[in-house]
């Protein structure tokens, strides 16, 4: 046959290379004289350096050599390497708390110790255990016990007070001793324990302590009228204490102290206005109005030219931070710094979220769920240095290299190699920083859009809503299904399936919610149950990917009409997620759309679409035919 290679059909060898934010993918193919394409192999490696910078060269060469080696070909046989023109999109995230709960004058203890003692409601005056002996007979006392008291001594002191006519109706303990104390009393009383800052409980004040039976929650102190009854409040005062009742809802135990001006406030933090410029308009929206209001205004300013935060406010700081981070990412050594004014925010996704945070003024480390707004912002830049990468690849490989096409268009081309797909086809590339959509019409016209918010935002929401404080753990909660360790030898998966193990599970995983990583079950550091963790995970994915899938597809669909789309192919790292593709398919089903995870070349799954698309575009290109005729 006289072909250049030892194997395969004669033809021109080309390699499509897709440099992405996290992975670099290569696709090797042979193009026949008639333009027919035979795909020979693919490879995938980690992207080196920031996407679109010369550092990408090393990763690109690794992927190219990898696919050549797998197919038994040599670099010298390659006619040309085709690189993608990276979409000049990067994204940033910020989160701002918009409510704050403050307890003043230590009026309330609303934490949930795991083991409170006794049950019922006790109302009396707060007295330190040291001064129980000094109380006059007939007085009703709520006994406050500092650190260092032994449970036997506490019980003895309370019983002794009872014998001298002082009625101790409840107790507040610093240590974890409530059950021990209650078990030793002649007449058990409700006891709340683990109150770390017990010395701050105001003494000589009327207080109520309530402990519910196991499996129940308090009924009196979580009810505004219950508080009014206990403390004899008038309607105006009742209105004032209603935040206390609300804050205690769902607790098994609680303490409320009546002080002259003590209060629990639920304050809204003014975070400032978001200023959106686009469609010839400048629109303003208060960030503390919430995600729905923000997204409504973003929708009216489409296409967005830029977004700013009111200077001197939280949101101003937030967007300035996003902009600065992006300037840093784009800055390159030896190059003039990227002027911040060149960085325009072209899309914003706002998501309502909540952040568990310690209550200011709390005595027992109480945690309140504060409302917050998370913002993902996307920036377009004019800087791409892919041509330089192409030159460096060419030099390193000893073969020609060129820019073969723009990412979005190439992705659609690659998606068309999925079995069962035809034009018009839209792709959704579910990435880390942005969600990208591209549409190829029946006539061959291609449009692409990028919207802010993707996998990184999901991770951030999971991290903050579960108060994990660890991005890696949040990432694993996102990626892997959950289970509950039910004994040293078995777990129950989130769908109810039970799995046994031959070797005992480690004690630190016992009875915990775990994520099933490839390395085995890893405990999630949370007191929440499996159902709660699962709900947080799915809601985070829905609020980012389902919302963005609809938002992006509406922007590319003719007339914004989703019904005009026929095939939607999901691509990108998050298309490998175990539930996101199903959630998007469910959301698109009512619009009569066929939606599923791509299977590029019938073998690659949602990977390699851009690389395969580059090869496909090269084979079909008219310019190519002319050039090849002359060689």
């Amino acid at each position, binding site marked *: 046959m006289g072909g250049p290679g030892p194997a395969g059909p004669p033809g021109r060898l080309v390699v499509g290379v897709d440099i992405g934010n996290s992975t670099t993918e290569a696709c090797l193919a042979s193009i026949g004289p008639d333009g027919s394409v035979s795909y020979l192999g693919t490879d995938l490696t980690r992207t080196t350096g920031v996407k679109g910078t010369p550092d990408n060269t090393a990763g690109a060469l690794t992927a190219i050599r990898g696919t050549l080696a797998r197919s038994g070909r040599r670099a010298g046989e390659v006619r040309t390497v085709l690189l993608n023109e990276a979409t000049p999109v990067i994204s940033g995230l910020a989160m701002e708390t918009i409510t704050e709960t403050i307890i003043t004058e230590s009026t309330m203890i609303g934490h949930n110790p*795991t*083991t409170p003692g006794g049950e019922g409601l006790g109302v009396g005056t707060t007295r330190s255990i040291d001064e129980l002996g000094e109380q006059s007979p007939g007085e009703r006392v709520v006994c406050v016990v500092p650190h260092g008291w032994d449970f036997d001594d506490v019980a003895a002191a309370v019983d002794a007070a009872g014998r001298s006519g002082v009625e101790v109706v409840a107790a507040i303990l610093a240590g974890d001793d409530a*059950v*021990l104390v209650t078990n030793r009393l002649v007449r058990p009383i409700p006891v709340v324990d683990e109150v770390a800052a017990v010395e701050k409980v105001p003494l000589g004040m009327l207080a109520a302590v309530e402990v519910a039976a196991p499996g129940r929650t308090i009924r009196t102190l979580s009810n505004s009228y219950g508080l009014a009854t206990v403390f004899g409040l008038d309607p105006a005062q009742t209105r004032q204490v209603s935040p206390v009742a609300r804050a205690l809802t769902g607790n098994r135990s609680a303490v409320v102290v009546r002080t002259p001006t003590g209060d629990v406030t639920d304050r809204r933090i003014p975070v400032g206005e978001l200023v959106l410029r686009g469609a010839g308009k400048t629109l303003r929206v208060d960030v503390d109005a919430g995600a729905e209001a923000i997204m409504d205004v973003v929708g009216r300013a489409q296409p967005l030219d830029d977004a700013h935060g009111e200077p001197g406010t939280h949101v101003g700081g937030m967007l300035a931070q996003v902009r600065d981070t992006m300037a840093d990412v784009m800055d390159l050594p030896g190059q003039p710094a990227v002027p911040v004014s060149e960085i325009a925010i072209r899309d914003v996704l706002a998501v309502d979220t909540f952040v568990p945070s310690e209550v200011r003024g709390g005595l027992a*480390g109480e945690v309140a769920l504060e409302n917050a707004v998370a913002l993902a912002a996307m920036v377009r830049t004019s800087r791409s240095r892919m041509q330089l990468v192409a030159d460096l690849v060419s030099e390193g490989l000893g073969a020609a290299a060129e820019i073969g096409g723009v990412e979005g268009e190439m992705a659609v081309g690659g998606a068309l190699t999925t079995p069962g797909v035809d034009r018009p086809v839209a792709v959704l590339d579910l990435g880390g920083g942005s969600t990208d959509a591209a549409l190829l019409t029946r006539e061959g016209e291609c449009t692409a859009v990028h919207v802010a918010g993707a996998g990184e935002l999901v991770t951030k929401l999971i991290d903050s809503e579960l108060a994990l404080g660890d991005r890696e753990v949040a990432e694993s909660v996102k990626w892997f299904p959950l289970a509950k360790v039910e*004994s*040293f030898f078995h777990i129950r998966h989130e769908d109810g399936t039970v799995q046994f193990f031959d070797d*005992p599970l480690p004690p630190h995983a016992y*009875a915990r919610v775990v994520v099933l990583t490839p390395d085995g079950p890893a405990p999630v*550091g949370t007191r929440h149950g499996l159902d709660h963790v699962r709900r947080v995970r799915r809601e985070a994915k829905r609020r980012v990917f389902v919302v963005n899938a609809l938002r992006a597809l509406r922007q590319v669909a003719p007339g914004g009409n989703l019904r005009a789309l026929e095939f939607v192919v999901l691509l990108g790292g998050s298309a490998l997620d175990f539930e996101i593709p199903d959630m998007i398919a469910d959301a698109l089903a009512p619009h009569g759309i066929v939606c599923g995870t791509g299977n590029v070349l019938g073998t690659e799954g949602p990977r390699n679409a851009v690389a395969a698309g580059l090869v496909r575009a090269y084979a079909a290109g008219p310019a190519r035919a002319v050039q090849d005729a002359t060689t």
Partner: protein
Amino acid sequence: MTGSGERPAVLVYRHRGAPSRALHEICAGAEEEGVPTEVVDAPDGGDVIALAHAAALASRLDVGIGVDVSGAAAVHHGKLPERNPAATAGPDASPADWRRAGRIGARVVKGLPLTEGPRP
């Protein structure tokens, strides 16, 4: 050994001369969690892990705790391999460590995480 396994309880096997403070704290740790304990005098010999395992095997709750003369303690479950205890406290254990050992024993019975995770 007497009295073992008659009513459901975490069995605490102690060597002769085991510190009484250790027993007091271990039993308090389990009581705070609402799980009964029963202290049993064990014959000499064997380390604290073997002691705990023997206690776990005899307990109707499958959970046992061993304490030796130095105050070292181990918490065990009857179904675990003998050399894999659920928790241990060394000879330098403090009253808080003993209290924790009792609490862990009770939490194995209750099917709750053995150590407190971060607050929700």
